[in-house]
């Protein structure tokens, strides 16, 4: 993990940190390997500049710039550059918001546990995991759990023929299936 700096172009960055200690990013062997587990903190830094503060400061900067140049209007490019400059200045006065989620990879089980259900960090962690370890994670589902438990041939056949059990008192299951088709 390379912590986010005010001068960086990115507004958000994720990386690995020590589990339980998100500000420890130089990882030693004993920080990561716990017997059969590979443990990491998935850290995300994000700049959160309050909108009203940014708007006010940009307005002030625009007024000051126009007065200095003796002009009445700014070009689109100048507006963008001013906004960027003000945002960077504000970032220097604050720290990025940091969030960390524990990740524990039970290597023997072939299972990674990610202690968050939020989709965005889960997606970002999956991407980083692939980049770091070269393995694609497949989120748990009834199918993956069934495969891991191991179905015999008869069960596999029944699995492929499964249909939803429908308890509604109105239309029959067959009617419901026909409607879906």
């Amino acid at each position, binding site marked *: 993990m390379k912590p986010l700096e005010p001068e960086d172009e990115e507004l958000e960055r994720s990386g690995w940190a020590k589990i339980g200690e998100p500000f420890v990013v130089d990882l030693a062997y004993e920080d990561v390997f716990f017997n059969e587990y590979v443990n990491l903190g998935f850290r995300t830094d994000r700049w959160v500049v309050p909108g009203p503060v940014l708007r006010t400061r940009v307005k002030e900067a625009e007024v000051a710039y126009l007065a200095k140049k003796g002009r009445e209007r700014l070009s689109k490019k100048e507006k963008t550059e001013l906004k960027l400059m003000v945002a960077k200045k504000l970032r220097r006065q604050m720290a990025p918001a940091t*969030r960390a*989620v524990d990740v524990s990879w039970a290597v023997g089980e072939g299972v*990674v546990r990610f202690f*968050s259900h*939020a989709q965005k960090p889960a997606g970002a962690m999956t991407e980083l995991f692939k980049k770091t370890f070269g393995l694609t994670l497949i989120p748990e589902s009834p199918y993956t759990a069934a495969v891991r438990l191991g179905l015999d041939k008869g069960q596999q056949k029944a*699995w492929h023929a499964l249909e939803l059990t429908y*308890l509604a008192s109105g239309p029959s299951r067959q009617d419901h299936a026909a409607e879906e088709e």
Partner: protein
Amino acid sequence: MKAAATLESSAAGGEPVNLADRIELRRFVGRELLLWLWLESELFEGTLATKEHGQFGLWLSGRLVLDEGQESTIIKGSAPGMNREAKEALLRGKMPERAGIHLSFGDHECTLTLRGETLAFAGLAAPRKKGDDAGGAGAGEPPPIDAPPVRRKSKKGDGDATYLADEAFYDRMHFARDVEALISALYRDFLAVRLSPSWEAHVVPALEAWVAGGDVDADRYRAARDRVVGRKRLG
């Protein structure tokens, strides 16, 4: 979220070739697991059993969410499954999407939310140990961290702190694995029944009677499900 770093799959005739389809087209099985747990917890008065765990307590508690498409029904309470509205939602074609579950096994007493379509846990809080100040580990979005802690210089006693941190980690992981093993054993037994003719012959009629508020012969049902589960264990 739990994810498999590697996955062995077995191809068979008629199954979707695409892994995404194999996953997506069978997500309803997880909802049926919740329905089955709900049925059994009521039929067996909150006492279920698996081969590995023996008897343990399991009942619906907290929040039960049922839905179909955009429409959902949320029932809260100490026994949301007993609420008539919950059964009526089933009769309107809704299926459990997630359920709060109370577990009482071994030395553990805990609650969690089990999501049907992902089989993921939420809000699993490990039992507190004496002297613990921190609350349980939630599984939602983590709170932002205010500022970097000052890194302590190495000093005598740091070894103890590391040992305690490691111990807390192992306790947390072992607890999560214990709960996962229990849910996994229940899922295995559910699949044994669900993928056998006994589902249509015994479970569906029991479900229909139970949902309609009729009587279900719990002993007869138990005998039928145990025959299938026992046979699978021997196999």
